[in-house]
Protein backbone atom coordinates (compact mmCIF):
# COMPACT_ATOMS: atom_id res chain seq x y z
CA UNK A 1 0.00 0.00 0.00
CA UNK A 2 1.15 3.48 -0.79
CA UNK A 3 0.78 4.71 2.76
CA UNK A 4 3.33 2.27 4.08
CA UNK A 5 5.87 3.28 1.50
CA UNK A 6 5.66 6.92 2.34
CA UNK A 7 6.00 6.42 6.06
CA UNK A 8 9.36 4.76 6.17
CA UNK A 9 11.10 4.79 9.55
CA UNK A 10 13.14 7.83 10.51
CA UNK A 11 16.93 7.74 10.47
CA UNK A 12 18.60 5.39 12.89
CA UNK A 13 20.20 8.03 15.07
CA UNK A 14 16.80 9.11 16.30
CA UNK A 15 16.24 5.70 17.72
CA UNK A 16 19.04 5.92 20.22
CA UNK A 17 17.86 9.06 21.93
CA UNK A 18 14.25 8.04 22.01
CA UNK A 19 12.11 7.37 25.02
CA UNK A 20 9.37 4.79 24.86
CA UNK A 21 5.73 5.54 25.47
CA UNK A 22 2.44 3.82 25.94
CA UNK A 23 0.64 5.56 23.09
CA UNK A 24 -3.08 6.23 23.16
CA UNK A 25 -4.06 7.75 19.79
CA UNK A 26 -7.59 8.85 18.91
CA UNK A 27 -7.61 7.01 15.57
CA UNK A 28 -10.62 9.08 14.48
CA UNK A 29 -11.85 8.07 11.09
CA UNK A 30 -14.01 11.06 10.28
CA UNK A 31 -11.24 13.62 9.82
CA UNK A 32 -7.78 13.80 8.36
CA UNK A 33 -6.48 14.82 11.81
CA UNK A 34 -7.67 11.48 13.17
CA UNK A 35 -5.84 9.57 10.46
CA UNK A 36 -2.72 11.59 11.23
CA UNK A 37 -2.91 10.77 14.92
CA UNK A 38 -2.96 7.11 14.00
CA UNK A 39 0.01 7.47 11.66
CA UNK A 40 2.03 9.35 14.27
CA UNK A 41 1.39 6.47 16.66
CA UNK A 42 2.49 3.91 14.08
CA UNK A 43 5.63 5.86 13.29
CA UNK A 44 6.55 6.15 16.94
CA UNK A 45 6.02 2.44 17.32
CA UNK A 46 8.41 1.75 14.48
CA UNK A 47 11.07 4.06 15.88
CA UNK A 48 11.04 3.34 19.59
CA UNK A 49 10.15 0.69 22.11
CA UNK A 50 6.71 2.23 22.46
CA UNK A 51 3.48 0.28 22.52
CA UNK A 52 0.09 1.31 21.20
CA UNK A 53 -3.12 1.16 23.17
CA UNK A 54 -5.94 0.62 20.70
CA UNK A 55 -8.65 3.08 21.74
CA UNK A 56 -11.41 0.95 20.30
CA UNK A 57 -10.39 -2.26 22.00
CA UNK A 58 -9.50 -0.41 25.21
CA UNK A 59 -13.11 0.66 25.63
CA UNK A 60 -14.24 -2.94 25.89
CA UNK A 61 -11.15 -4.70 27.20
CA UNK A 62 -9.52 -2.80 30.04
CA UNK A 63 -7.30 -5.53 31.32
CA UNK A 64 -5.43 -5.97 28.09
CA UNK A 65 -3.77 -2.56 28.32
CA UNK A 66 -3.72 -1.71 31.99
CA UNK A 67 -0.22 -3.14 32.39
CA UNK A 68 1.26 -1.17 29.48
CA UNK A 69 -0.44 1.98 30.69
CA UNK A 70 1.14 1.60 34.09
CA UNK A 71 4.62 0.62 33.02
CA UNK A 72 5.28 3.24 30.36
CA UNK A 73 4.77 6.99 30.35
CA UNK A 74 1.47 7.65 28.63
CA UNK A 75 1.39 9.69 25.44
CA UNK A 76 -2.04 10.80 24.30
CA UNK A 77 -2.56 11.84 20.68
CA UNK A 78 -5.79 13.71 19.98
CA UNK A 79 -6.86 14.52 16.47
CA UNK A 80 -9.28 17.36 17.06
CA UNK A 81 -10.79 19.51 19.79
CA UNK A 82 -13.22 16.78 20.78
CA UNK A 83 -10.19 15.18 22.45
CA UNK A 84 -11.62 11.65 22.51
CA UNK A 85 -8.28 10.09 23.45
CA UNK A 86 -7.77 12.49 26.37
CA UNK A 87 -11.28 11.82 27.56
CA UNK A 88 -10.71 8.09 27.33
CA UNK A 89 -7.52 8.46 29.39
CA UNK A 90 -9.38 10.54 32.00
CA UNK A 91 -12.19 8.03 32.10
CA UNK A 92 -9.77 5.19 32.77
CA UNK A 93 -7.96 7.25 35.40
CA UNK A 94 -4.65 7.20 33.54
CA UNK A 95 -1.87 9.67 34.22
CA UNK A 96 -0.97 11.50 31.05
CA UNK A 97 2.73 12.30 30.70
CA UNK A 98 2.80 13.66 27.17
CA UNK A 99 0.05 15.00 25.06
CA UNK A 100 -0.37 16.28 21.55
CA UNK A 101 -3.32 17.63 19.62
CA UNK A 102 -2.86 17.22 15.88
CA UNK A 103 -5.21 20.04 14.87
CA UNK A 104 -3.52 22.48 17.23
CA UNK A 105 -0.05 21.37 16.20
CA UNK A 106 -1.02 21.93 12.56
CA UNK A 107 -2.30 25.40 13.41
CA UNK A 108 0.91 26.23 15.23
CA UNK A 109 2.97 25.14 12.26
CA UNK A 110 0.69 26.97 9.84
CA UNK A 111 -0.30 23.78 8.07
CA UNK A 112 -3.75 23.35 6.58
CA UNK A 113 -4.69 19.71 6.76
CA UNK A 114 -6.35 17.92 3.90
CA UNK A 115 -10.12 17.82 4.03
CA UNK A 116 -10.11 14.22 2.84
CA UNK A 117 -8.91 11.21 4.77
CA UNK A 118 -5.94 10.62 2.51
CA UNK A 119 -2.43 11.30 3.72
CA UNK A 120 -0.55 13.41 1.20
CA UNK A 121 3.08 14.55 1.11
CA UNK A 122 2.39 17.58 3.25
CA UNK A 123 0.71 15.42 5.88
CA UNK A 124 3.52 12.88 5.77
CA UNK A 125 6.08 15.56 6.50
CA UNK A 126 3.95 16.86 9.29
CA UNK A 127 3.60 13.37 10.80
CA UNK A 128 7.36 12.95 10.75
CA UNK A 129 8.00 16.30 12.36
CA UNK A 130 5.59 15.51 15.20
CA UNK A 131 7.14 12.09 15.78
CA UNK A 132 10.65 13.52 15.75
CA UNK A 133 9.73 16.14 18.30
CA UNK A 134 8.11 13.56 20.56
CA UNK A 135 11.06 11.24 20.47
CA UNK A 136 13.70 13.75 21.39
CA UNK A 137 11.82 15.77 23.93
CA UNK A 138 12.30 13.85 27.18
CA UNK A 139 16.05 13.90 26.67
CA UNK A 140 16.14 17.67 26.57
CA UNK A 141 13.85 18.08 29.52
CA UNK A 142 15.97 15.74 31.60
CA UNK A 143 19.20 17.60 30.91
CA UNK A 144 17.90 20.80 32.35
CA UNK A 145 16.33 19.82 35.60
CA UNK A 146 15.82 23.04 37.52
CA UNK A 147 13.76 23.78 40.53
CA UNK A 148 12.05 26.88 41.75
CA UNK A 149 12.21 28.22 45.28
CA UNK A 150 8.59 28.68 46.23
CA UNK A 151 7.34 29.67 49.69
CA UNK A 152 4.69 27.46 51.26
CA UNK A 153 2.41 30.27 52.38
CA UNK A 154 1.62 33.80 51.36
CA UNK A 155 -0.23 36.74 52.90
CA UNK A 156 -3.45 37.62 51.19
CA UNK A 157 -5.71 40.59 50.76
CA UNK A 158 -9.35 39.74 50.28
CA UNK A 159 -12.30 41.22 48.48
CA UNK A 160 -15.72 40.22 49.75
CA UNK A 161 -18.92 39.99 47.79
CA UNK A 162 -21.74 38.71 49.99
CA UNK A 163 -20.61 35.25 51.04
CA UNK A 164 -17.82 34.99 48.49
CA UNK A 165 -14.29 35.91 49.46
CA UNK A 166 -11.67 36.47 46.75
CA UNK A 167 -8.05 36.21 47.82
CA UNK A 168 -5.07 37.85 46.14
CA UNK A 169 -1.51 37.43 47.42
CA UNK A 170 -0.02 40.76 48.42
CA UNK A 171 3.58 40.38 47.37
CA UNK A 172 5.82 38.73 44.85
CA UNK A 173 3.17 37.96 42.23
CA UNK A 174 2.54 39.26 38.73
CA UNK A 175 -0.84 38.90 37.05
CA UNK A 176 -2.37 39.17 33.62
CA UNK A 177 -5.87 40.37 32.85
CA UNK A 178 -6.87 36.80 32.10
CA UNK A 179 -6.69 35.99 35.81
CA UNK A 180 -3.49 34.01 35.76
CA UNK A 181 -0.46 34.68 37.98
CA UNK A 182 3.30 34.27 37.85
CA UNK A 183 5.66 34.07 40.81
CA UNK A 184 9.21 34.68 39.69
CA UNK A 185 12.33 33.33 41.36
CA UNK A 186 15.63 33.52 39.54
CA UNK A 187 14.99 32.72 35.90
CA UNK A 188 11.99 30.52 36.63
CA UNK A 189 8.36 31.51 37.00
CA UNK A 190 5.74 29.42 38.71
CA UNK A 191 2.38 29.99 37.07
CA UNK A 192 -1.22 29.39 38.09
CA UNK A 193 -4.77 30.75 38.05
CA UNK A 194 -6.23 33.25 40.52
CA UNK A 195 -9.02 32.84 43.02
CA UNK A 196 -11.41 34.49 40.56
CA UNK A 197 -11.05 31.60 38.12
CA UNK A 198 -11.35 29.01 40.84
CA UNK A 199 -14.50 30.56 42.34
CA UNK A 200 -16.19 31.00 38.99
CA UNK A 201 -15.47 27.49 37.78
CA UNK A 202 -16.46 26.01 41.13
CA UNK A 203 -15.50 22.34 41.59
CA UNK A 204 -12.62 21.67 39.22
CA UNK A 205 -12.65 18.06 38.03
CA UNK A 206 -10.17 17.93 35.19
CA UNK A 207 -6.77 19.36 34.44
CA UNK A 208 -5.23 19.01 31.00
CA UNK A 209 -1.52 19.69 31.43
CA UNK A 210 0.63 21.51 28.90
CA UNK A 211 3.55 19.61 27.40
CA UNK A 212 6.72 19.69 29.48
CA UNK A 213 9.68 20.68 27.35
CA UNK A 214 7.71 22.76 24.89
CA UNK A 215 8.07 26.49 24.39
CA UNK A 216 5.32 28.88 25.33
CA UNK A 217 4.65 32.45 24.31
CA UNK A 218 3.23 35.08 26.60
CA UNK A 219 -0.58 34.62 26.55
CA UNK A 220 -0.16 31.16 25.03
CA UNK A 221 -2.20 28.23 26.31
CA UNK A 222 -0.81 26.49 29.37
CA UNK A 223 -3.27 23.64 29.49
CA UNK A 224 -6.87 23.84 30.67
CA UNK A 225 -8.83 23.41 33.87
CA UNK A 226 -12.40 22.21 33.68
CA UNK A 227 -15.39 22.01 35.98
CA UNK A 228 -18.99 21.02 35.36
CA UNK A 229 -19.53 24.64 34.33
CA UNK A 230 -16.79 25.42 31.84
CA UNK A 231 -13.34 24.80 30.42
CA UNK A 232 -10.83 27.51 31.29
CA UNK A 233 -7.75 27.98 29.18
CA UNK A 234 -4.77 28.88 31.34
CA UNK A 235 -3.29 31.95 29.67
CA UNK A 236 0.43 32.07 30.34
CA UNK A 237 1.57 35.35 31.89
CA UNK A 238 5.13 34.75 30.73
CA UNK A 239 7.07 33.34 27.81
CA UNK A 240 9.69 30.62 28.00
CA UNK A 241 10.03 26.88 28.21
CA UNK A 242 7.77 24.66 30.28
CA UNK A 243 10.08 22.78 32.62
CA UNK A 244 7.59 21.26 35.05
CA UNK A 245 3.88 20.65 35.52
CA UNK A 246 2.18 20.19 38.88
CA UNK A 247 1.53 16.44 38.89
CA UNK A 248 -0.53 16.66 42.07
CA UNK A 249 -3.31 18.57 40.34
CA UNK A 250 -3.58 15.97 37.60
CA UNK A 251 -4.66 13.47 40.22
CA UNK A 252 -6.48 15.94 42.52
CA UNK A 253 -7.57 19.00 40.56
CA UNK A 254 -9.56 20.23 43.56
CA UNK A 255 -6.24 21.43 44.97
CA UNK A 256 -6.80 24.42 42.69
CA UNK A 257 -10.07 25.12 44.48
CA UNK A 258 -8.39 24.78 47.85
CA UNK A 259 -5.69 27.30 47.11
CA UNK A 260 -4.84 28.28 43.55
CA UNK A 261 -1.73 30.19 44.68
CA UNK A 262 -0.05 27.48 46.74
CA UNK A 263 -0.53 23.74 46.17
CA UNK A 264 -2.80 24.49 43.21
CA UNK A 265 -0.06 25.92 40.97
CA UNK A 266 -0.05 24.84 37.33
CA UNK A 267 3.45 24.86 35.81
CA UNK A 268 7.03 26.11 36.07
CA UNK A 269 8.46 28.06 33.18
CA UNK A 270 12.06 28.83 32.44
CA UNK A 271 11.95 32.48 31.43
CA UNK A 272 13.34 33.71 28.14
CA UNK A 273 12.40 37.38 28.09
CA UNK A 274 10.81 38.38 31.35
CA UNK A 275 11.74 42.06 31.01
CA UNK A 276 9.64 42.16 27.89
CA UNK A 277 6.80 40.07 29.40
CA UNK A 278 6.61 42.43 32.36
CA UNK A 279 5.39 45.19 30.11
CA UNK A 280 2.05 43.42 29.87
CA UNK A 281 1.79 42.23 33.46
CA UNK A 282 0.00 43.75 36.41
CA UNK A 283 1.19 44.17 39.97
CA UNK A 284 -0.99 43.53 43.02
CA UNK A 285 -2.65 46.97 43.07
CA UNK A 286 -3.51 46.92 39.40
CA UNK A 287 -4.86 43.38 39.46
CA UNK A 288 -6.82 43.90 42.66
CA UNK A 289 -8.62 46.86 41.07
CA UNK A 290 -9.49 44.77 38.02
CA UNK A 291 -10.58 41.84 40.15
CA UNK A 292 -12.97 44.02 42.16
CA UNK A 293 -14.50 45.36 38.99
CA UNK A 294 -14.91 41.88 37.54
CA UNK A 295 -16.50 40.53 40.70
CA UNK A 296 -18.97 43.42 40.82
CA UNK A 297 -19.89 43.30 37.16
CA UNK A 298 -19.75 39.67 36.49
CA UNK A 299 -20.32 37.36 39.34
CA UNK A 300 -21.16 33.91 38.11
CA UNK A 301 -20.12 32.05 41.24
CA UNK A 302 -23.51 32.82 42.66
CA UNK A 303 -26.16 30.19 43.38
Amino acid sequence: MKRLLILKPLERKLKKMSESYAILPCNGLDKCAGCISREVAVLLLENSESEIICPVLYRIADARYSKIAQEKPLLVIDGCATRCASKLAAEKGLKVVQKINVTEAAKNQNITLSSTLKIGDKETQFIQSIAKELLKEPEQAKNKKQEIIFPEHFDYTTYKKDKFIFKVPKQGFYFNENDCWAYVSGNIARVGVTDFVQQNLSDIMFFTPPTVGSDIEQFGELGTVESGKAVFEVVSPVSGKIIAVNDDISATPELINKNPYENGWIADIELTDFENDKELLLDFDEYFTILKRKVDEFHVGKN
Partner: protein
Amino acid sequence: MADDKLTIGIVSCSGENCLGGTISRLATRKVLEEKENETVTICLPLYLAGGEEERNFAKEYPTIAVDGCSKCCAKRATEKYSGKISTSIDLSKIIGKKTATSESLSTKMINDSHKEMIESVANEIRKKIDEILKIPNPNSN
Protein backbone atom coordinates in the same frame (compact mmCIF):
# COMPACT_ATOMS: atom_id res chain seq x y z
CA MET B 1 -23.16 49.44 40.68
CA ALA B 2 -24.85 47.07 43.10
CA ASP B 3 -22.11 47.32 45.69
CA ASP B 4 -24.03 48.17 48.81
CA LYS B 5 -27.20 46.39 47.86
CA LEU B 6 -28.54 44.16 50.56
CA THR B 7 -28.05 40.45 49.98
CA ILE B 8 -30.24 38.06 51.89
CA GLY B 9 -29.04 34.60 52.78
CA ILE B 10 -31.49 31.72 52.77
CA VAL B 11 -30.66 28.57 54.65
CA SER B 12 -32.85 25.52 54.33
CA CYS B 13 -32.73 22.42 56.51
CA SER B 14 -33.05 20.23 53.43
CA GLY B 15 -33.77 17.38 55.83
CA GLU B 16 -33.34 13.88 54.39
CA ASN B 17 -35.68 12.19 56.80
CA CYS B 18 -39.03 13.87 56.31
CA LEU B 19 -41.20 15.43 53.66
CA GLY B 20 -40.76 18.83 55.29
CA GLY B 21 -37.08 18.66 54.36
CA THR B 22 -37.88 17.86 50.74
CA ILE B 23 -40.36 20.73 50.51
CA SER B 24 -38.14 23.22 52.34
CA ARG B 25 -35.30 22.45 49.95
CA LEU B 26 -37.36 22.84 46.79
CA ALA B 27 -39.18 25.97 47.95
CA THR B 28 -35.88 27.57 48.96
CA ARG B 29 -34.26 26.71 45.63
CA LYS B 30 -37.26 28.11 43.81
CA VAL B 31 -36.97 31.48 45.51
CA LEU B 32 -33.17 31.55 45.18
CA GLU B 33 -33.49 31.02 41.45
CA GLU B 34 -36.12 33.69 40.93
CA LYS B 35 -34.47 36.26 43.17
CA GLU B 36 -30.94 35.62 42.04
CA ASN B 37 -29.85 39.20 42.58
CA GLU B 38 -31.19 39.65 46.07
CA THR B 39 -30.39 36.29 47.61
CA VAL B 40 -27.57 33.88 48.17
CA THR B 41 -27.54 30.17 49.05
CA ILE B 42 -26.25 29.28 52.46
CA CYS B 43 -25.25 25.64 52.59
CA LEU B 44 -26.05 24.59 56.14
CA PRO B 45 -23.47 21.85 56.78
CA LEU B 46 -20.72 24.24 55.68
CA TYR B 47 -21.07 25.90 59.09
CA LEU B 48 -19.02 23.03 60.42
CA ALA B 49 -17.07 21.92 57.39
CA GLY B 50 -16.54 25.11 55.46
CA GLY B 51 -14.66 28.33 55.85
CA GLU B 52 -15.49 31.75 57.15
CA GLU B 53 -17.66 32.48 54.11
CA GLU B 54 -20.67 30.68 55.51
CA ARG B 55 -19.88 31.08 59.19
CA ASN B 56 -19.66 34.85 59.11
CA PHE B 57 -22.60 35.38 56.83
CA ALA B 58 -25.46 35.67 59.30
CA LYS B 59 -23.38 37.98 61.48
CA GLU B 60 -23.23 40.49 58.68
CA TYR B 61 -26.26 39.91 56.47
CA PRO B 62 -29.94 39.23 57.04
CA THR B 63 -30.62 35.52 56.90
CA ILE B 64 -33.85 33.55 56.62
CA ALA B 65 -34.04 29.99 57.93
CA VAL B 66 -36.46 27.57 56.31
CA ASP B 67 -37.13 24.52 58.48
CA GLY B 68 -38.96 21.36 57.50
CA CYS B 69 -40.11 20.37 60.96
CA SER B 70 -40.39 21.83 64.43
CA LYS B 71 -36.89 20.66 65.35
CA CYS B 72 -35.87 23.85 63.53
CA CYS B 73 -32.35 22.64 62.77
CA ALA B 74 -31.59 25.35 60.21
CA LYS B 75 -32.51 28.12 62.60
CA ARG B 76 -30.71 26.60 65.56
CA ALA B 77 -27.57 25.66 63.62
CA THR B 78 -27.32 29.14 62.12
CA GLU B 79 -27.64 30.81 65.51
CA LYS B 80 -25.19 28.41 67.09
CA TYR B 81 -22.43 28.76 64.48
CA SER B 82 -23.03 31.92 62.49
CA GLY B 83 -25.25 34.67 63.80
CA LYS B 84 -28.76 35.72 64.68
CA ILE B 85 -31.45 34.76 62.21
CA SER B 86 -33.59 37.64 60.89
CA THR B 87 -36.65 35.51 60.55
CA SER B 88 -37.52 31.86 60.22
CA ILE B 89 -40.17 29.66 58.71
CA ASP B 90 -41.36 26.39 60.25
CA LEU B 91 -43.04 24.24 57.60
CA SER B 92 -45.07 22.27 60.07
CA LYS B 93 -47.05 25.46 60.64
CA ILE B 94 -47.79 25.81 56.93
CA ILE B 95 -48.30 22.27 55.68
CA GLY B 96 -49.22 20.70 59.02
CA LYS B 97 -47.11 18.74 61.45
CA LYS B 98 -48.21 15.35 60.20
CA THR B 99 -47.44 16.05 56.58
CA ALA B 100 -44.14 17.68 57.46
CA THR B 101 -42.90 14.63 59.34
CA SER B 102 -44.14 12.08 56.82
CA GLU B 103 -41.62 10.29 54.61
CA SER B 104 -39.15 12.27 52.54
CA LEU B 105 -39.41 12.07 48.77
CA SER B 106 -37.24 11.91 45.72
CA THR B 107 -37.78 14.78 43.29
CA LYS B 108 -39.09 12.07 40.93
CA MET B 109 -42.13 11.59 43.14
CA ILE B 110 -43.21 15.21 43.44
CA ASN B 111 -46.91 15.51 42.51
CA ASP B 112 -49.30 18.41 42.19
CA SER B 113 -50.21 18.53 45.84
CA HIS B 114 -46.52 18.71 46.75
CA LYS B 115 -46.09 21.46 44.19
CA GLU B 116 -48.84 23.41 45.93
CA MET B 117 -47.03 23.01 49.23
CA ILE B 118 -43.79 24.20 47.64
CA GLU B 119 -45.56 27.21 46.24
CA SER B 120 -47.14 28.19 49.54
CA VAL B 121 -43.81 27.87 51.35
CA ALA B 122 -42.08 29.84 48.58
CA ASN B 123 -44.71 32.53 49.04
CA GLU B 124 -43.91 32.71 52.70
CA ILE B 125 -40.19 33.11 51.90
CA ARG B 126 -40.96 35.83 49.35
CA LYS B 127 -43.00 37.69 51.97
CA LYS B 128 -40.11 37.54 54.43
CA ILE B 129 -37.70 38.85 51.80
CA ASP B 130 -40.00 41.77 51.04
CA GLU B 131 -40.28 42.55 54.74
CA ILE B 132 -36.51 42.59 55.10
CA LEU B 133 -35.92 44.70 52.01
CA LYS B 134 -38.28 47.38 53.25
CA ILE B 135 -36.45 47.87 56.51
CA PRO B 136 -32.83 49.03 56.64
CA ASN B 137 -30.18 46.44 57.37
CA PRO B 138 -30.49 45.73 61.10
CA ASN B 139 -26.96 44.33 61.30
CA SER B 140 -25.32 47.26 59.61
CA ASN B 141 -23.45 48.55 62.65
